[in-house]
């Protein structure tokens, strides 16, 4: 076996201590982190080669071909309940009727937060709908299509694309700001006339203002501007009051829709508010369906573009992995088909389908899956409570309780950790639909509220600390490898 490497390195002390090759490699790494899509093909080929032993082990030892199965049924109940919850209590403009649209994906804006939702309907289908989009009592954003357009009156490709909802804190992308605004373009930034009822001892009344997207340095995505009574605003002492849309000449936005909760930022000990902000009533990372308002005269042209689910049979095998993951699964398409990135891996042997994890960066018909219980990402959940209501939650797996149950920290809404019921997936990408069963959830422990340093600005009367849900996942998912006999990957047919 021959010696590898440099035979003359000892004679070049500078290159020995500061090797140019190493720094060039790190530059390549930085390039790869910044532009992952550019090096993805190379990485895909390299991964195919490096995982050849894993594939061989999978065939030799514990890999098993999956069997064909029927369409998943797990998502239906959850989605139906979600639609009912989305519609409940909603009100829209006069002459329009509500229509539930499922969300298929979300887009992160320039400020690093989700500010755009992609719906399961094309723009042509929603042409003629009112611009506003609601969820329950709340106003969440506006459609990115003209309010009074007709099908086919824009470029054909534009109309065929999936419709998008620009949330209230939507910020224009750089691409759109380079050219001047055209008459038919959707309005770039939402400005909503809103109001809040002041209930302070020394300040009572209704404060009117405009709600606009906040700046990058602000702690909340929406801020209040153009207060009609600045004195009243300066006397506010308590955060958390509900901000609602106010009566204006614009009849397309009815009064009374909830925008979010008022957050007062400043120096509470000195009774000096510095800024008024609004925390949206729903975390956009958790919104899985919305209500659009279509003209009651049936002007829009509905067509079925609901995502059709298909099951791809896969081979499945598991391998030990370093901490904190501890275990990773290799799934291989035994039909040679391409696996969609972000598809949900289901266990069909349990109750007609149980969610196990998401495929990450598939290559050459293979993919690795981090088990849901070891995942580190933020998830959109649905929780079907015992009374049948479906709640949208946002949370993250933070570990295991001593009794083995999974600890899921609920990030939104604040009181979401107090719920009890069946935990389901929300929409977590175009190939992970809402309503896949995860486990049974019960309230866990409340978190510890953040303690601010005296003298620093902070929110007046901060909301309660967030807590955790304890989720019971069937034991067999964790310990019995036989459940891996029948695995399916849920994809979306295009």
């Amino acid at each position, binding site marked *: *076996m*021959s*010696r*590898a*490497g*440099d035979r003359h*390195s*000892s004679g070049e*002390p500078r*290159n*020995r*201590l*500061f*090797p140019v*090759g*190493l*720094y*060039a*490699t*790190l530059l*390549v*790494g*930085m*390039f*790869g*982190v910044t532009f*992952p899509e550019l*090096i993805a093909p190379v*990485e895909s080929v*390299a*991964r195919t*080669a*490096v*995982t*050849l*032993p*894993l594939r061989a082990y999978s065939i030799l030892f514990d890999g098993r071909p999956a069997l064909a199965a029927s369409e998943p049924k797990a998502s239906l109940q959850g989605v139906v309940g979600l639609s009912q919850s989305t519609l409940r209590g909603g009100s829209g403009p006069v002459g329009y009727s509500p229509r539930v649209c499922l969300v298929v994906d979300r887009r992160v804006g320039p400020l690093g937060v989700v500010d755009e939702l992609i719906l399961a309907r094309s723009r042509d289908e929603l042409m003629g709908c009112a611009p506003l989009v609601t969820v329950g009592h709340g106003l969440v954003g506006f459609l990115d299509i003209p309010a009074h357009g007709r099908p086919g009156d824009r470029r054909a490709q534009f109309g065929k694309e999936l419709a998008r909802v620009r949330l209230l804190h939507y910020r224009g992308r750089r691409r759109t700001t380079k050219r001047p605004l055209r008459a038919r373009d959707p309005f770039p930034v939402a400005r909503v006339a809103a109001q809040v009822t002041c209930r302070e001892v020394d300040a009572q009344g209704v404060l009117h203002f405009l709600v606009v997207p906040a700046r990058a340095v602000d702690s909340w995505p929406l801020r209040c501007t153009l207060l009609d009574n600045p004195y009243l605003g300066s006397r506010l002492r308590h955060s958390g009051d509900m901000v609602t849309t106010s009566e204006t000449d614009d009849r397309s936005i009815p009064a009374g829709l909830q925008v979010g909760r008022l957050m007062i930022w400043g120096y509470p000990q000195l009774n000096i508010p510095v800024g008024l902000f609004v925390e949206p009533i729903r975390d956009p990372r958790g919104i899985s369906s919305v209500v659009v308002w279509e003209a009651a005269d049936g002007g829009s042209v509905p067509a079925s573009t609901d995502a059709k689910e298909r099951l791809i049979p896969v081979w499945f095998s598991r*391998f*030990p*992995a*370093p*901490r*904190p*993951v*501890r*275990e*990773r699964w290799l799934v291989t398409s035994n039909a040679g088909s391409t696996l969609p990135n972000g598809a949900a891996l289901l266990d069909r042997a349990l109750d007609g389908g149980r969610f196990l994890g998401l495929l*990450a*960066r598939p290559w050459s018909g293979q993919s*690795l899956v*981090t088990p849901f219980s070891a995942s*580190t990402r933020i998830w959109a959940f649905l929780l079907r409570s015992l009374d049948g209501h479906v709640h949208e939650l946002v949370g993250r797996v933070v570990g295991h309780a001593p009794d083995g149950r999974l600890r899921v920290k609920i990030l939104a809404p604040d009181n979401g950790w107090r719920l009890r019921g069946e935990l389901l997936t929300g929409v977590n990408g175009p190939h992970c639909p809402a309503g896949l069963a995860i486990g049974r959830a019960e309230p866990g422990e409340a978190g510890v509220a953040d303690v601010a340093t005296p003298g620093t600005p902070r929110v007046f009367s901060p909301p309660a600390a967030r807590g955790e849900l304890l989720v019971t996942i069937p034991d067999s998912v964790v310990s019995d490898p036989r459940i891996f006999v029948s695995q399916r990957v849920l994809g979306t047919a295009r």
Partner: protein
Amino acid sequence: MIAWLLWFFVALHLFLLDGWFAGLTDHVPDLSLSIALFCALYAKPKALPGLLLCAALSRSVLVPGSAALHLLVLGVPVAVLLPLRGVFSRGSVLWPCLASGFLAFVLPRLSGLLFRLTAEGGPALPMTGFEIFVAMCVIPVFTLALRSVPPLSLFQEEGP
């Protein structure tokens, strides 16, 4: 060439072994630290890019995150420690222990930082003081074992 082929396929098995250890006990430190320690203290400088690339690629198979991300997680601490070869003696017993402690402290934090910046990989799970102490004791021994056998023995810098 044979050495490179060996390393290309053996690196993945080192991480599999690491995962197997992790399933047995919580007290065995991450084997990635051994690879980083070998690269920083003992590897031939011109072999570093290949060693790190193969290690990062294999690590990305079993730990969430792209190969580029793992290249930075493993490579940046190596780049920091490498110039100190001119200061410390290779025969020192204390130096590998200190370097192991540094790596055990830095690697999880660097991983967490990159997770915050790129949303790839996983959040930081910093080691406790006890875990760093265990790493300082165990990682030099692991590294000694690794550099005693091929393929890493073939990439070892010659000298005292």
